[in-house]
């Protein structure tokens, strides 16, 4: 097990290195010049050239790359071209909102998605099952921002129950933190609830048709025991896989939700950084996110052993 984890860690570093090179090349091939953006809409070419020189953007690309790699190896994620602040500090500022939103979303979608999926599988073909299929399709096909506007209009402006936008840090009050996260979480969760419910339903149906389930039923096990103790446990692996894999998609969805609800998170920061070509931010954040992604999937793989004793590493 330990060698397995070690091996996975090594490959995680390889993955992060590849992401780093890929992103560096991609960004530098893209036209655009942070100096020109810095100088503003009506700046002269002369002013832009001066800034570019100052920022060290005139160095040849391989030199810039080596500089970046060597500082990364020293644990220095660089400084933002625009704000002049360390990228690591900026990411820390932005991490809490994104983590809160992602984890709340995961919690809600796993709880609701699994329950709905189990219920649908229990009464496959029934009214609930069909409603769920319809809901799942809607969850997929309505853009996040439309859902967001709708919820804001209904619950924040109309009823006045919840705030429209913004984020309150946990330490400034749990109530405010939670209230500001309700609408974004619900908005972001819809497609994931749909996805997880569908996967749960499918894998439950598969398990329910197994012989040992029929045996259990014949032995007179209650419906609850059958569904939860026997079937769900065995259907857990594919569900867990999907949850792990949706992490990358979740971060993607976070970008839109953060924009709609004005949550100062990491996703929004990267979009703004791409728009202004703030290279150090984009490079560092994407490397960190990919590292996190690899770690989460490792955690998921290890969690398999908890659900399914047959799996050993």
């Amino acid at each position, binding site marked *: 097990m330990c060698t397995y984890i070690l091996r996975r860690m090594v490959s995680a570093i390889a993955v992060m290195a590849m992401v780093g090179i*890929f992103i560096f090349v991609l960004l530098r091939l893209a036209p655009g010049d942070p100096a020109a953006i810095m100088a503003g809409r009506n700046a002269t070419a002369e002013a832009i050239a001066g800034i570019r020189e100052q920022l060290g953007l005139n160095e040849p690309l391989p030199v810039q790359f080596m500089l970046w790699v060597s500082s990364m190896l020293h644990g220095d994620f660089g400084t933002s071209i625009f704000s002049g602040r360390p990228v690591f500090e900026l990411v820390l500022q932005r991490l809490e909102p994104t983590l809160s939103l992602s984890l709340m979303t995961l919690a809600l979608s796993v709880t609701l998605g699994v329950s709905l999926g189990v219920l649908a599988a229990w009464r496959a073909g029934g009214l609930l099952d069909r409603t769920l299929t319809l809901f799942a399709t809607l969850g997929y096909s309505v853009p996040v921002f439309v859902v967001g506007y709708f919820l804001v209009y209904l619950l924040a402006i109309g009823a006045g129950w919840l705030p429209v936008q913004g984020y309150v840090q946990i330490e400034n009050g749990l109530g405010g933190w939670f209230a500001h996260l309700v609408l974004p979480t619900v908005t972001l969760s819809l497609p994931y609830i749909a996805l997880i419910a569908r996967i749960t339903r499918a894998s439950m149906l598969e398990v329910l048709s197994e012989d040992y389930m029929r045996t259990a039923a014949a032995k007179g096990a209650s419906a609850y025991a059958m569904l939860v103790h026997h079937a769900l446990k065995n259907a857990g692996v594919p569900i867990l896989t999907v949850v792990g894999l949706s992490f990358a998609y979740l971060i993607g969805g976070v970008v839109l939700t953060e924009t709609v609800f004005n949550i100062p998170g990491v996703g929004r920061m990267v*979009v703004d950084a791409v728009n202004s070509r703030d290279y150090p931010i984009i490079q560092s954040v994407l490397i960190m996110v990919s590292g996190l992604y690899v770690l989460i999937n490792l955690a998921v793989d290890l969690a398999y052993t908890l659900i399914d004793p047959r799996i050993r590493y």
Partner: protein
Amino acid sequence: MLVLAGGGLLMLLVVLAVAAPLYAGDPEALDPFIRLQPPSGEHWLGTDNLGRDVLARTIYGARISLIVGLMSAFLAAIAGLTIGIIAGYLRSFDNLIMRVMDALMSIPTFLLAIALISLTGPGIGILIFAVALPETPSVSRLVRSVVLSVRERPYVQAAICGGARLPKVMLRHILPSTFAALMVQSATVCASAIMTEAGLSFLGVGVPPEIPSWGNMIASSRLYLATAPLTVLAPGVFLAITVLAVNLLGDGLRDLFDPRSRSR
């Protein structure tokens, strides 16, 4: 049953889209003096923020959205298939290839797409590529796992021992087995491509503003949700129908190829 419903609906949409020039008006004709008008005899679904016909744009939008959806699904399928087969068959490359796929997969879809689009500026070609690229790893993983299990089966082993050349083994034995899983996966990719396109337009990096696409229309009309709701609803309803059709098709295909998961 599901395949028929989904496939039929999708075919209908394709026909509507292909035949657009025969019956729909000009989607690009604009007139700034008739912005955001309610439905009228001349403009059945009203006009958008540049005085363009919403109905014509919605119909033409089917072309763009279907092209983006189908092409990126196709691209991801082909690339994923090739990579998956190579990784699953030539074991010496397996580790390297799968780590590259991991790397691709670990970059969040939206952020990768935005970075890619900054290369060339918004356009349909780059959009398809940007949607297909992050979907490729999941397809290739799937194909690889099928290949791994298939190549151990006796009849494939027998073919290899019998001196069958690699391409022949692929074509005869491995491709058909992966086909089912591939179709199902492609349907998912197609649906998510259409949604990704809408999200990218919302962030201002989708297809260029003059090109009618549903995502683009919804995103650029979002300020008029209260004053001219049809500008958002018309493309929105079509988007939902299309995603529904694609999902139905995907479900149907899964049932067809994998009878065990058929709903009872």
